[in-house]
């Protein structure tokens, strides 16, 4: 039997909690390896979808095929998936090492190799000093890192990480991202996060869920192709005239400024796409006598997300 081209195939998936529709008509195919982001507002259905793929919830309607198995939770999938659930907690009164060894035994790894794997994985998430302690002494961030560590204990072919960097300090978040990149070379990593700038740099593909529906999916370029945001830094403060002149360009959808910086949303849907839009912009800046000191891509994914979720960008953050 040939290996399936996709690790996960979701067809016509629907899920309800009582009368509330949590997911409806989800169709999504995920690759064999790489990092896939799952984004959406709170309550959109991300965790429900994670739970269905992981087999925590029973599939009510539709299909989820995973690694050739006809449904999640099959015995053939045991040990082939690593999951970091959002709200699960380790037993507080048993040492972390003992708990990891137990999970490794279930994965079929025992003895000295299990112990060395447990130490190695804890070192990767910066928790090697806590390994002999109970989980009760761990802070929220440490608990997150431990959750990531346990999901990568064996050699999973699919890893599900539900908000793995939420609540982590920048150094630890970076450490986890690097770890994900490494794992993503050989396995499929599905990660949900509200930090879209972080995801944009990390992921190969993205799925956007709004009100239980998958409203967009594909590579980051595919999802953000129409709307690309660029941050431009100048040597002089941005003036109202500059804003007006830039805003009048056909390729510019909107423009905002902050002191020496401009945030410009380009429409890259034309025949020549992004290149032409960028050329037009840079030519205009030269014409205005205010060349860009720095021009870099901004939060394109966030911009696409805001449009897909119909949230006005100037909505104040909570």
């Amino acid at each position, binding site marked *: 039997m040939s290996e399936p081209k996709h690790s996960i195939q979701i067809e016509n998936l629907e899920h309800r909690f009582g009368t509330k529709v949590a997911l409806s008509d989800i169709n999504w195919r995920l690759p064999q390896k790489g990092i896939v982001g799952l984004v959406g507002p709170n309550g959109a259905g991300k965790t429900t979808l994670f739970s269905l793929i992981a087999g925590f919830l*029973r599939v009510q309607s539709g299909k989820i095929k995973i690694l050739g198995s006809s449904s999640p939770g099959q015995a053939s*999938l*045991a040990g082939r998936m690593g*999951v970091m*659930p959002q709200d*699960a907690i380790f*037993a507080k009164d*048993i040492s972390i090492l003992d708990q990891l060894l137990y999970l490794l035994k*279930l994965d079929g790894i025992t003895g000295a190799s299990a112990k060395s794997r447990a130490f190695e994985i804890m070192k990767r998430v910066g928790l090697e000093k806590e390994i002999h302690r109970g989980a009760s002494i761990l802070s929220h961030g440490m608990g997150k890192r431990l959750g990531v560590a346990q999901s990568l204990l064996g050699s999973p072919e699919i890893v599900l990480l539900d908000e793995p960097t939420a609540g982590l300090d920048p150094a630890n978040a970076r450490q986890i991202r690097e770890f994900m990149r490494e794992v993503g070379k050989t396995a499929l990593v599905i990660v949900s996060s509200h930090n879209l700038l972080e995801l944009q740099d990390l992921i190969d593909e993205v799925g956007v869920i709004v009100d239980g529906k998958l409203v967009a999916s594909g590579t980051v370029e595919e999802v953000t192709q129409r709307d690309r945001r660029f941050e431009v830094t100048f040597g002089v403060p941005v003036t109202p005239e500059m804003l007006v002149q830039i805003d009048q360009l056909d390729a510019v959808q909107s423009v905002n400024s902050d002191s020496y910086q401009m945030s410009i949303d380009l429409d890259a849907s034309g025949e020549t796409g992004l290149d032409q839009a960028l050329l037009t912009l840079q030519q205009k800046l030269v014409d205005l006598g205010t060349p860009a000191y720095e021009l870099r891509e901004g939060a394109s994914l966030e911009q696409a997300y805001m449009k897909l979720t119909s949230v006005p960008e100037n909505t104040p953050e909570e």
Partner: protein
Amino acid sequence: MNKTRHIGLHAIKMISHSMRSGSGVAFIFLTILIGLSLANLAVTPIELELVTVEELQDSSARAIGVALATATLRASDEDDNQGTLTSRMENGDLIDLGMWARYLVIENPMLLSITVLLLGVVLPLLLPLGSFTVISGDVQHRTVRYLLPRTSRSSILIGRWLGSMILAWSLIIFLLCSVVIYLSIMIPSESLEDLIPWAGRCFLALFFLTIPYVSLGILCSATFSVPMVALLATVGSTIGVPLLSLSLQEAWEPLGNLLYLLPWGYSHELLSPTTSKVVEASAYCLLHGLLFLILALLKFRRADL
């Protein structure tokens, strides 16, 4: 093969977690304390010199005979004009039950018999304390989510059921050993030579009695995700079934058979002098346990965790 290995791992983990977290130790301590208290209760009349051993044997035989007759012959109670159960026993009408009481109290070490009979009532209420969090605790804290990608739901449930059974059986061994030692110290006339073989027989009775009640605890633990609700459901049904059946029986006699929803209706047969009845009661215990385990499996396999 992998499933069997996983079941073994879950069972060992369940036992070690229960011992290391202290809950298992507390459970064992509590049960032994209750077991010894019951033994002490049986010894007290002799210690206080209120009765002699012979008098106690005689009165115990009567009391146990009446209790057993009441439990097993309620249906024939309508012919009250023939006299009370006690007088019927004395008149030889209830020879089987008289023999039974004699077998338990006079032919075997009396105080151990009394203690085990009392344990047969108390143990069903104690066992849920050791099993109510087995599944529900991990479901409530979502710890079970770390296991689900690695092992099957049935392996988790069967493994933990097995762990609970082993813990309960070990507990009964501890309990009977301590009761036997206690009684042999308190009443030297009850020799160890008599006590030990009878304790083995009592162990077998309690061994089988444990199976349905631990399985009931696991069923409630798999059904209710809040441990306290699981505990209330287990203890509530254990106490509720006999109370309900006795009260409903007054209204309509066949409703008295509700007693057989749990082993209350036949558990006393586990100490019967008739081997065939012991085998029958043991088989019912196994079937009851199996039924509860299957229901727990069906529930747990379909549950949203």
